[in-house]
């Protein structure tokens, strides 16, 4: 059960939920939703920052989401979407790698 809990918080369930909440936050212009998204994304980025070759850089990913939240608060939608992109791209990259090695 603990394994599943860890998998849920550090794995893709939290990531998908984080991205979904962030997108809804930007669409509804609610900055706190993007902050919740960043909090949900933090364990995954912490986990990812431990992988070799990435030099611990993924730990900065929730920072982009916090930046997106600030942009939403400042009513700057373009910057909000742009700052959400890194989290999206990294998630897609990890999904692609996982699928590539599975099939």
């Amino acid at each position: 059960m603990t394994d599943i809990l860890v998998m849920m918080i550090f794995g893709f369930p939290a990531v998908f939920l984080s991205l979904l909440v962030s997108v809804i936050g930007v669409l509804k212009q609610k900055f706190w939703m993007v902050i919740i998204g960043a909090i949900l994304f933090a364990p995954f980025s912490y986990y990812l920052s431990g992988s070799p070759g990435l030099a611990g850089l993924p730990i900065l990913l929730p920072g982009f989401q916090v930046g997106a939240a600030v942009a939403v608060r400042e009513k700057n939608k373009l910057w909000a979407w742009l700052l959400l992109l890194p989290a999206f791209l990294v998630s897609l990259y990890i999904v692609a790698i996982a699928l590539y090695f599975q099939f």
Partner: protein
Amino acid sequence: MRQRGEQSQLTYQDEIATLAKEQLTRNDESRTMLDFLLSLLAGWPAIVTTVILAIIGLVRNNHRLLLGAAILAVPFSWYLSGFPVIRSPVFLTPVLLFCSAWAMRYGREMLAWILGITFFLVVILLFLALSAGVS
């Protein structure tokens, strides 16, 4: 005379057999109906409907939809917590949605969203636990 007696006994036995067969068929039908209702209320259809209702309720700031989702979540969470005896805290899952509906009703949108997200995480956890075969 004897032949007529045997014939009437045979007819009586046939009737009993037919009645028993009908009763069995009726029992099977009612059991199938109950199984169908159980799978509808305690299975994946209820879970998916609950999640969709909860998402729409949260996005549209509608506490009634969240309340509907919470009511719909009661049977499957009770079933998953070990129907009829409660063996796990999973049966408290609808409380999250009830609280979310309450928060939405009184204008506390952030609290409603946090409770809703917790509910979604619990549902994902349940999905993972069920697919992993953990009871």
